């Protein structure tokens, strides 16, 4: 049996522009979503620095607060917040695509899966805010 694709050049790939993701809005939102990873990493870094400051007494805390109030820091953190928010919204909207649930042969609609995710997000966020602000 001859495999018809055997003699086709397998290694040929048309060169794609490095900036292919600027060509369309949907490509751009894809790459922005992927770029949110940088700010997820950034948020962990901030958290680690804060844990360090909190456990190292008043002068470390004062330095941390001053650092967080720096205009450059605030600018970066506004951008980081927008990206993390974008990550959260796109993540919950993608959940029904990755997790297909069927009941009696019928596919459960997207909103029935992403809805509870959004609800849980609101509850968890309020819960954390309550725990932090209570003190």
């Amino acid at each position, binding site marked *: 049996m001859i495999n018809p694709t055997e003699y086709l050049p397998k290694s040929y790939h048309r060169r794609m522009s490095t900036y292919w993701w600027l060509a369309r809005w949907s490509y751009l939102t894809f790459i922005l979503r992927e770029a949110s990873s*940088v700010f997820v990493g950034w948020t962990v870094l901030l*958290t*680690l620095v804060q844990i360090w400051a909190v456990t190292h007494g008043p002068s470390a*805390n004062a330095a941390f607060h001053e650092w967080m109030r720096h205009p450059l820091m605030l600018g970066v953190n506004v951008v980081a917040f927008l990206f993390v928010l974008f990550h959260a919204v796109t993540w919950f909207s993608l959940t029904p695509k990755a997790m297909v649930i069927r009941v009696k042969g019928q596919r459960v609609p997207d909103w029935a899966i992403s809805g509870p995710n959004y609800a849980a997000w609101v509850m*968890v966020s309020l819960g954390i805010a309550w725990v932090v602000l209570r003190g």
Partner: protein
Amino acid sequence: MSKRSNEPFLWLLFSAGGSVSAMLMPVHLFLFALAFPLGWLDPPSDETLLVLIRPPLVRVYLFVFCFLSLFHAAHRFRFTLYDGLQIKHLNELINVLCYGGAAVGTVAAAYLLCQVP
């Protein structure tokens, strides 16, 4: 016979970390990086925060938050470079830097949380 791959395991970390960071990061960042420094809300005192992070359960929470989010970010950033910028010839180096960075961050988180008095 196909080669054994680490991808499913890495994808599991990616997906768990994606959920954890989506659920928890916006509120964390809003409070500590915007609302408190800008004076929108009254921040808890530093002593209160220290008391807050002392219980083992809270430390485990913070550890999981850091660990899974870091591996999520590492996995996604790796593919941003791979698909987005098509940096494919440096694949090995990028893998080492991404997952290595996430591992270093995870160890740092464990160390810092053990140091909490």
